[in-house]
């Protein structure tokens, strides 16, 4: 860890309140408001999406470790990448861990 960088407060993540979505056949279909298009998540990403409700990445990793046969490190990297993409598209909102999710 870079000693010059202040330690980051862990973030919790929740689905943006303006986003409408449905789970059909284990896959999540999201109406992307700003892009006026549909986004379909694969089964793995859908599992993450449906568990977001204000959790930290490490909590998601612990939950999904029991479902997927991959290492915690791989899960953490993949979940972090997915969540970052969702945040970038304004579908998921990060909330500092001290705040109410």
């Amino acid at each position, binding site marked *: 860890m870079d000693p010059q960088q202040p330690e980051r407060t862990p973030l919790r993540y929740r689905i943006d309140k303006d986003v409408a979505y449905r789970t059909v056949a284990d896959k999540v*279909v999201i109406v992307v408001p700003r892009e006026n298009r549909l986004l379909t998540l694969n089964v793995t990403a859908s599992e993450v999406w449906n568990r977001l409700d204000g959790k930290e990445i490490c909590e998601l990793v612990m939950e999904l470790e029991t479902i997927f046969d991959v290492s915690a490190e791989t899960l953490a990297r993949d979940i972090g990448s997915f969540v970052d993409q969702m945040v970038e598209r304004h579908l998921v909102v990060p909330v500092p861990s001290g705040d109410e999710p």
Partner: protein
Amino acid sequence: MVSERVYTLSFSEHLVEITVHGVQGEEDLRPISDWSIVSGDCRVPDVRLEVWLQDHAALLPEAKRDIPSHTVESIAQREGGFRYYSPGALEGTLVPVDGKLSGSFQVLHSGRALEGLLKIAVSQLFCHLGGGLFHASAVSHSGICFLFLGPSGAGKTTIATRLNAGGTPISLDRVGVVPREGGGWAACATPFSDPFGAGTYAGPPVPVRGLVFIHQAEATRMVPLEPLTALKNILKHVAAYGRSRELDEQLLDVAERMATELECCELHFTKDERFWTVLDRSQKESL
């Protein structure tokens, strides 16, 4: 001479009454006057619109005069209704009143803007009724119908015209779909097409048997769709104007139910005789 005109449009047992103020000439009204107008119908309209025609400057804020018409459209839920705003084209609200919709709008002196307003109103009406408006054609046969959904140029009119020989045209370009009492869905005409020059279909909504998503291709074939693929295809063909969370939620509900309750398939077709062979065989199997 400036005047006021009142029109009543009828389609599949629905009525839209539109009062247009500030009419300066027939050009202002051409899209409406080309549609099916009824008179003497005493029912309460499903949608009642008061429209004030305005010049371009009155509808465009100073700061946004460089925005061309029809490029920006917004929808926001306000006080139980919807506010629509499209700079240079229209501005107004549509609210539910006693189970009906009532709207008040300023619209540009342009047939296109007035037609746009009616598409918004009719789209909102079908949402209000628990369904939606779709880019589709529909022809009824033996008391049921299939919807053919696709973008402009996909062949909706071609297919509906071919099927017209043995059925009743409901609509060529946009079809309203509403839930039926007791389950299932029914197709309604809209004022936006005049199928085969026969006037807008004014009969009761027709039960929908299935949805056919059409694509022109090298070979003709029918492919049944899984509910997820059907859901995505249905949502692609919704004719919705503007967005809101509530509207998205409702359309997702409608699309999900339609995807699971109706037969859904893709029709890849060539515009030659092989197409009719496949379609006729499919029709016989379905009807």
